[in-house]
């Protein structure tokens, strides 16, 4: 697969990707603010800085395709078309939440949009995506499944089993590793040997490293892998190198005894902001004039405002709902 041979996206697709990234960024920023007010019942893991990965991949998917996500799952949820307001209602534990308030941040899911769920178990989504890819293959409609996981998740044994099985069965599966430099509080290099993408090689599966802060690069590589998978040629592993700007979990300063990374490192990566890069490209490619940019910003701001306003007046779930849904 040669990423360079792929063309640039249509202007409409490019604009859509920019808007999605901006939506994720602003939604997550607001969540970070809300955390400091103490109104959130549970923990949240923000994906600021990593937006290009979910958006670049999901731009090739529609509701019939599947994704499995992680504890850092808001970006995947929104990139795949999940409803921002229902996500926020869920995180606030309201009955209008996408899971009726019973899942929370780490479990946002919308099966009607092919979102198999965020996951509280690191690596938990990988096997689930393999199963969805199997179903997609059996259906024969050209659907694909994507497992998003972190560099930390790459160290779960299930990854080897998944690559092997998907290769043997030629499953339409993308294993997308968001290498954001940290496995919780451990720098990746201290817990992860070698190159994650290369873990595909012995199985005869393509393993591609891509700049995870460049949404166009992600879009090209993912496009190629999705086409391949849809055509029946089997799985691919994509390692997108990116960086987590925020804490592992928003409340981490309250329980850690000290820092585990240099502020300077964060600043260096912030200078490589995936949104700013895309904005520059859009303008230089003539895909967007400043007024179009303003329109997108205003649309996103309005979506974010209503997502953080309306759910707050929604009720908490009725008591009996605690005892519903264990069995069909």
């Amino acid at each position: 697969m040669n990423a360079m041979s792929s063309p640039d996206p249509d202007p409409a697709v490019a604009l859509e990707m920019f808007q999605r990234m901006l939506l994720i960024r602003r939604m997550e920023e607001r969540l970070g603010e809300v955390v400091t007010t103490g109104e959130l019942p549970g923990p949240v893991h923000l994906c600021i800085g990593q937006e290009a990965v979910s958006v670049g991949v999901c731009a090739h998917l529609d509701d019939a395709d599947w994704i499995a996500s992680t504890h850092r799952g808001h970006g995947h949820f929104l990139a795949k078309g999940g409803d921002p307001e229902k996500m926020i209602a869920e995180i606030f534990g309201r009955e209008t939440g996408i899971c009726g308030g019973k899942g929370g941040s780490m479990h946002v899911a919308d099966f009607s949009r092919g979102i198999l769920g965020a996951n509280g178990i690191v690596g938990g989504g990988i096997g689930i995506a393999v199963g969805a890819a199997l179903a997609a293959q059996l259906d024969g409609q050209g659907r694909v499944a994507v497992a998003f996981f972190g560099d930390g998740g790459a160290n779960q044994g299930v990854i080897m089993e998944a690559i092997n099985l998907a290769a043997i069965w030629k499953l339409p599966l993308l294993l997308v590793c968001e290498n954001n430099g940290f496995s919780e509080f451990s720098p990746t290099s201290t817990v992860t040997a070698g190159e994650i993408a290369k873990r595909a090689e012995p199985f005869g599966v393509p393993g591609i490293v891509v700049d995870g802060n460049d949404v166009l690069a992600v879009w090209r590589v993912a496009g190629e892998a999705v086409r391949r998978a849809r055509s029946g040629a089997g799985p691919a592993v994509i390692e997108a190198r990116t960086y987590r700007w925020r804490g592992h979990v928003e409340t981490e300063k309250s329980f850690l005894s000290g820092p585990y990374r240099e502020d300077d490192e964060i600043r260096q990566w912030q200078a490589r902001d995936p949104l700013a890069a895309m904005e520059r490209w859009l303008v230089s490619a003539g895909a967007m004039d400043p007024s179009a940019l303003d329109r997108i910003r205003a649309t996103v701001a309005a979506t974010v405002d209503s997502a953080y306003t309306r759910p707050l007046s929604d009720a908490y779930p009725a008591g009996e709902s605690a005892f519903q849904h264990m069995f069909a």
Partner: protein
Amino acid sequence: MKKMRMIQAINEALTEEMARDSRVILFGEDVKISLFGDTRGLADRFGENRVRNTPISETVMTGAAVGAAAAGYRVVCHMMFANFLYTGFDAIANQAAKLRYMTGGQIRLPIVYMAVMGAGRSAGAQHSDVPYPALMNLGGIKVVVPSTPADAKGLLKASIRDDNPVVFLQPARRGGEQGDVPDGDIIVPLGVADIKRAGGDVTVVAIGAMVRTTLRAADQLAKEGVEVEVIDPRTLFPMDTATILASVRKTGRLVVVDEARTTCSAASEIAATVAEQAFDCLEAPILRVTVRDVAMPYSPPLEKLVIPDEQSVVDAVRKTLSTGRRSGTQRVTQ
């Protein structure tokens, strides 16, 4: 005697045992920076050979604990949240629990798998379980659940010195609470329950975070003239059934308060044992106060509804006093 939080008591136990025995090693995810604070400072003090950060690889972590123990080390394997024991369950259930038995007693496996458990923090269903019922049924694993800082310290030290696999589960909601911890090398032997409050009217067995809840309920009931005897088993397997049975023989009434789901809970096991061995002493049906058979919900009001609270313990005690062979209701109002 010193006042400290459970998490500090656990840190002291680990520090003391690592200092005492150079064959004690510890590993787990981010144990150096330490999310809960229980392993903080250990790497600095004992070096990066004996205290190691692992990748997120629970399957190999639990298995490696078995191998290192079989090869002569005392292993503390920190699993972070107790739900991740499930991720590493294979080596716990199929290897650690059975290897000594299957090999005719050839090896000792001094392993402590430690983890933080329990609900009440809107951490969601995958971070809130109390997985001890499944562990109790394995047979080859000792299961330890402290409810106070002193017990945590003494039980953990005993667990590390034990020559068998132990799962040590600290209740998440107790980590920050202060309690008196005696000075010196305190050891709380495994398999010995503690009577946290003496009383002659009703026996209430409470586990982990439920002990504090039950003691508060007992205070409230004492004002009504009901004297509750509160027993904390501290070790769930092997269980100190003698202490529980002796109490029930005295009171004739039993309530068990357990944060596990009802079906096959520790409460079920305790109830079955008492029904089998002290049926003739029972004045009223045994009552279990447990979590109904649902996954832990996220939304705060739902979570609160599901976890046993002071009122549910009070209600159960009143109920057992008002039913049964002797006129319990009158007894309460006397």
